[in-house]
């Protein structure tokens, strides 16, 4: 018999029976839950709120940039806007969004486990996130912070008169939330896989989250200690980073980017995992070069640690080390390219379905590629000096972070929404939103590549008049993007009450999460599944379905 037939899998949980949503009632049953699925929902709500907050700062900035004059905000307020946009979007949205929402919900089910290895620690990590977000909101309400999300010294330790301590403390706490999530993922993947679920049978989303977790565990403590030293210098005036009192500002940048460059991979690696799941499901094929894709995640995690000083090319580092870091930065493109080529090879001659998750992932592949390739421009020493601190850099990282991570998150939330809620959303509105996001995104950020190349610096509220046309295009694109992001809030919310029931496996996808009811029961499976098939064994499933139809 084939390695996978539909009969191999005992479908657990019946439609309409008890599930994780209706198993218990009341606010406390949510706030004290140890169920990974409920914790994922808590994250979904809180991270969405932070996304709306971070997005509102972006809207204010784009409106300011409609005209060359600084006529809506003062320069000080504009400084606070881009700082808060960066802090909220990076620490409270991009880093946790896929691991904490989709990873929390799906990972244990993909492993055939009842929950994470440490359910209480999982809940603790959400509370740490909320505490950090609360401190961040306090800072925002009481006047904000103006250092940029990078908190560069000595501005942050001596000159800034805004809430530097508060916001770095928030970042410090959010870091621990991230560390605990990574720890839980690693232990769970090692210890709680279902019988038969060997490493090479794992879905690539699991491999991606594993690599992400390694980066979270190894990099985040360095950010924590760096922020503590920053606070210490600001409190005590003892010189660590401030050259006026014997410190070294470049040391701060080394330590900050030792975390913050790998943090880029914390944001993009889970997105790549989502891409692999969706590409396989909507092409009905095995991922081309499964092991290459799996190990390229680990390769990115490793190489991502060796490139941080490309953020310091004009900060006064030695030319020798700049050369080394430029060389190493080129290297990290190799595993990233392996993934893109393998997804593309999977698409080749496939019967591609144009369902909403696939639309987002097709957008992801293209936009991430542009973001990645322009990263190589910036890794090139000479070119980087030309475009350093210009809108070229802004466009580059938004192509990776928004074109990459946000597109993949939207793909993932649409792909697993039927599993999470048990309901289908309206496919027409969802496709329309995907189209609006793609068009709006490109209209927002592609002009910024040109602006940067022409020399418009980032982080100013006023600019030379010849840049206005491209800035108006960018703001117009941001308006379309905002509509594209608002639509899912409406139709996904609508689906909760009015969406048709999803059933166990609405996409006809392979994977343990598609063998349990939607929404899943409290403990995911009635009995522990036994895995006898490889990941993405669509050919075998198609064959089995064909045989059934022939009978």
């Amino acid at each position, binding site marked *: 018999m084939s390695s996978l037939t539909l009969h191999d899998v005992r479908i657990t949980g019946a439609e309409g029976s008890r599930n994780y949503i209706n198993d218990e009632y009341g606010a406390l049953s949510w706030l004290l839950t140890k169920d990974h699925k409920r914790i994922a929902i808590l994250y979904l709500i809180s991270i969405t709120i932070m996304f709306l907050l971070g997005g509102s700062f972006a809207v204010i900035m784009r409106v300011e940039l409609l005209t060359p004059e600084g006529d809506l905000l003062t320069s000080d307020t504009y400084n606070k806007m881009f700082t808060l946009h960066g802090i909220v979007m990076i620490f409270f949205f991009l880093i946790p969004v896929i691991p904490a929402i989709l990873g929390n919900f799906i990972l244990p089910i993909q492993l055939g486990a009842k929950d994470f290895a440490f359910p209480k620690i999982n809940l603790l990590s959400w509370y740490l996130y909320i505490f950090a977000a609360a401190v961040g909101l306090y800072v925002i309400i009481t006047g904000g912070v103006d250092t940029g999300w990078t908190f560069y010294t000595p501005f942050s330790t001596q000159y800034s008169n805004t809430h530097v301590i508060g916001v770095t403390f928030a970042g410090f706490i959010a870091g621990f939330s991230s560390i605990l999530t990574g720890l839980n993922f690693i232990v769970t993947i090692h210890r709680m896989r279902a*019988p038969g679920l060997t490493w090479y049978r794992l879905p690539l989303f699991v491999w991606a989250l594993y690599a992400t977790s390694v980066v979270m565990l190894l990099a985040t403590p360095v950010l924590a200690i760096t922020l503590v030293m920053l606070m210490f210098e600001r409190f005590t005036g003892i010189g660590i980073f401030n050259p006026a009192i014997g410190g070294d500002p470049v040391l701060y940048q080394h330590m900050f980017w*030792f975390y913050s460059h790998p943090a880029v991979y914390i944001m993009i690696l889970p997105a790549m995992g989502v891409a692999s799941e969706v590409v396989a499901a909507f092409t009905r094929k095995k991922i081309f070069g499964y092991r290459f894709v799996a190990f390229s995640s680990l390769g990115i995690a490793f190489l991502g640690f060796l490139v*941080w000083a490309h953020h310091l090319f004009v900060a006064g580092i030695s030319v*020798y*080390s700049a050369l*080394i*870091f430029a060389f190493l930065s080129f290297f990290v493109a190799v595993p990233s390219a392996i993934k893109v080529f393998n997804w593309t090879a999977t698409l080749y001659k496939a019967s591609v379905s144009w369902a909403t998750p696939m639309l987002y992932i097709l957008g992801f592949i293209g936009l991430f590629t542009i973001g990645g390739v322009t990263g190589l421009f910036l890794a090139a020493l000479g070119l980087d000096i030309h475009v350093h601190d210009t809108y070229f850099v802004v466009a580059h990282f938004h192509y990776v972070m928004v074109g990459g991570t946000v597109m993949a998150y939207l793909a993932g939330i649409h792909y697993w929404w039927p599993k999470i809620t048990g309901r289908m959303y309206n496919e027409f509105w969802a496709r329309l939103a995907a189209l609006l996001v793609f068009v709006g995104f490109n209209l927002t950020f592609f002009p910024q590549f040109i602006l940067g190349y022409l020399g418009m610096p980032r982080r100013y509220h006023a600019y030379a008049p010849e840049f206005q046309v491209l800035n108006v295009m960018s703001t117009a694109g941001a308006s379309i993007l905002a509509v594209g992001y608002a639509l899912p809030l409406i139709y996904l919310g609508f689906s909760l009450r009015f969406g048709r029931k999803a059933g166990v496996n609405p996409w006809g996808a392979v994977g343990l999460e598609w063998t349990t009811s939607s929404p899943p029961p409290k403990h995911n499976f009635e009995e522990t599944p036994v*895995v006898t098939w490889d990941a993405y064994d669509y050919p075998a499933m198609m064959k089995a379905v064909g045989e059934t139809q022939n009978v």
Partner: protein
Amino acid sequence: MADISVTEHHHSDHAPTHHVTPLWQYLLVFFALAVGTVLTVVASRFDLGMWNTPIALFIATVKATLVILFFMHVIHSTRLTWVVVIGSFLWLGVLFVLTFADYLTRSWSLY
């Protein structure tokens, strides 16, 4: 039906054995740490020139190793735990080596 017999999977194979450390061993490590602290203070009273920092770091490293091996029970842990511990220090090494690749080459005036 699935052939369960070939897919049996015993996580208990990997379960760590719980080693009970005798009290005297903890006390001995505590004593060694106290001696290390005294040595650090004593060494700080003498000007050893370029050896000031290396000696202080050496004593601190020995103390940290004792804490990791005995108080954190790594010496009786699985090989996977050893991989994690050694890997963490390798990463710390990456931070140090590549940062020094900048600091130690700044006076290189060939350019």
